[in-house]
């Protein structure tokens, strides 16, 4: 009885944190640069493939530490890609209308998909969960995989760290000022282009990191790039135009609704996410947390 009620909640929280981990970098870049990055999924996928290759190289069973290190390494590699992308593309599109950066990010999505196909081929791969995270916790008749608990914890931790940086550090205040008025920030002597470069690098790092962290949960194929992007866009907008707290709340709200909805209407799993998203957009078009940038 308890499990019937709690198990969808648990599953919903798990998928919420998956979407949130995916969406953090996207939210950061959209919140500050106003670029809706279609390529985010592509670089997330790149991170997952890189982590997959590293896991293969190490071989054997992964410990939690090596799993985290591999993910961070994938994040750094993708972050470096971000630096190149910022230098070559985003910086040049700064003074062009936002709509055109859409083509650029879509082109990047194609390039990352092509790169993955050329390097790793089109066949499916999958990685095993580190054995330390492979078991499950059973409470009554509620079964909770340790990996899912781990991801939920990581999602919450990721949110807490970002929230702390944004609200309580000088860097965070700088980011907020830049998000609300880049021109004025520049006037006050902040090196805006360099700051933008850092944001893009961090955003891409987060994409790669998420790719590595969620690797045991995914089947690797070149389609992975477009799996989470739409959900992440939804979370981004329902949360309120690129604000981390809103994205966190929105991912929980939408995924938990979807999780319960899928039990009631099991013919079309996943549909309630979008139904809830549409209703939220109509009921509260300004987003869950209005007005706040980041």
């Amino acid at each position, binding site marked *: 009885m308890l499990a019937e009620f709690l198990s969808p909640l648990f599953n919903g929280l798990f998928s919420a944190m998956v979407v949130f981990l995916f969406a953090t970098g996207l939210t950061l870049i959209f919140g500050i640069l*106003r670029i809706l990055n279609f390529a985010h999924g592509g670089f997330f996928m790149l991170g997952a493939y890189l982590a997959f290759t590293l896991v293969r190289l190490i071989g054997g069973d992964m410990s939690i530490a090596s799993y985290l290190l591999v993910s961070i390494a994938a994040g750094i590699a993708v972050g470096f890609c971000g630096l190149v992308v910022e230098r070559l*593309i985003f910086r040049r599109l700064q003074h062009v209308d936002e*709509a055109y950066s859409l*083509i650029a990010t879509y082109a990047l999505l194609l*390039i990352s998909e092509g790169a993955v196909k050329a390097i790793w081929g089109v066949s499916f791969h999958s990685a095993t969960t580190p054995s330390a995270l492979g078991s499950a916790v059973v409470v009554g008749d509620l079964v909770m995989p340790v990996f899912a608990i781990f991801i939920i914890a990581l999602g919450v931790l990721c949110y807490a760290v970002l929230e702390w940086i944004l609200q309580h550090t000088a860097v965070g205040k700088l980011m907020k000022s830049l998000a609300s008025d880049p021109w004025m920030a520049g006037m006050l002597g902040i090196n805006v282009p360099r700051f933008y470069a850092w944001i893009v690098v961090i955003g891409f790092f987060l994409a790669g990191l998420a790719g590595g962290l969620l690797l045991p949960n995914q089947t690797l194929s070149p389609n992975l790039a477009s799996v989470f992007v739409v959900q992440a866009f939804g979370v981004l907008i329902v949360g309120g135009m690129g604000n981390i707290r809103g994205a966190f709340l929105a991912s929980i709200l939408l995924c938990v609704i979807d999780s319960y909805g899928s039990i009631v209407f099991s013919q*079309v799993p996943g*549909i309630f996410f*979008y139904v809830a998203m549409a209703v939220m*957009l109509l009921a509260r*078009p300004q987003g869950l947390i209005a007005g706040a940038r980041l």
Partner: protein
Amino acid sequence: MTSSTNGSTINGSTWRRDALIAAVALAVLVSLPFVANKGIVFVAGTLALHVVFGLSWNLMFGQTGLVSFGHASFFAIGGYAFAWTAKMFPQLHPLLLFAGAGVLGALVALVVGMIALRRSVGVYFAILSLALSQIVYLLLSYTPSLGQEDGLTGIRRPLLSLGLTTIDLARGDNYYYFMIAMCTLLAIGLWWVVHGSMGRVFKSIQQDPERAAFLGINVQGYRLRSFAIASGTTAIAGALYGPWLQLLTPEIAHWTFSARPILYTLLGGVQSFWGPVVGALCFAVLEYGTRTLHGLSEIVVGCILLLIVLAFPGGLLGGLSRLGKRMAGKPAVAAKPELAR
């Protein structure tokens, strides 16, 4: 070059120029089966549908400033509606079914638009349309009578009875010519909407919705009209797609397909009527040229797209017209459509 960007009245020179461009394009398309192989004819037929797809999207974006990220769902609604009804009611006239698919697309857009446009514009409407298109995609992927993820197969090219004579569209290149004729009619319809009196109202909304409202224009109502017309047109293009491919899968409702008309329009240029046509043509050429380079084709297409965006941030036609103006010594005016406001 300037006539279609500033004034929207149908003046002689715009009409003559566009008719000339259309005639040349039609001549090429009609003669293609005689000179080119089947592969190229297939690409050209598909291109004609994509052109209508792109033109109708730009009716919303270029004319009333409405960004839809879910335009493919109407393509899919039309496609599935035609394929399903043609299978269930084979005695009905195919032209009736094509028209029915268009009406269905327009009606769905009306209902959705009446709710959605009341509350949201800009990026909110974009993401809302994305959510709705995902719902369509999931419904198509999980409905048993529509073939779920395998889609509908064996869609027949119908017999077209025209009173005096009956044309078997399954024979030879008949369906190709039928499609070209239909796409031409749809494109003329869109051209007429853009350049007629409704188009002028649309244009005023795109330029400044607030001022248009102040002048007594029902902004929401006209946006709704452009949404419904664009969706109905796309639904007919979708309906034509089923018998052309003889197969429909939910992939035509996927968001990556919704991105297509956006790319065509932005790549070709928003301000010109011909922008999406140029964009779609570029895409078709790129994809056909790189089709044998497995995996590398995405990289090549992506890189060329990037180069075009970086070189001509206002779209190809916008870039060319600016280049032309600079040569003539006039100051350049950049095209500036708005996505978020």
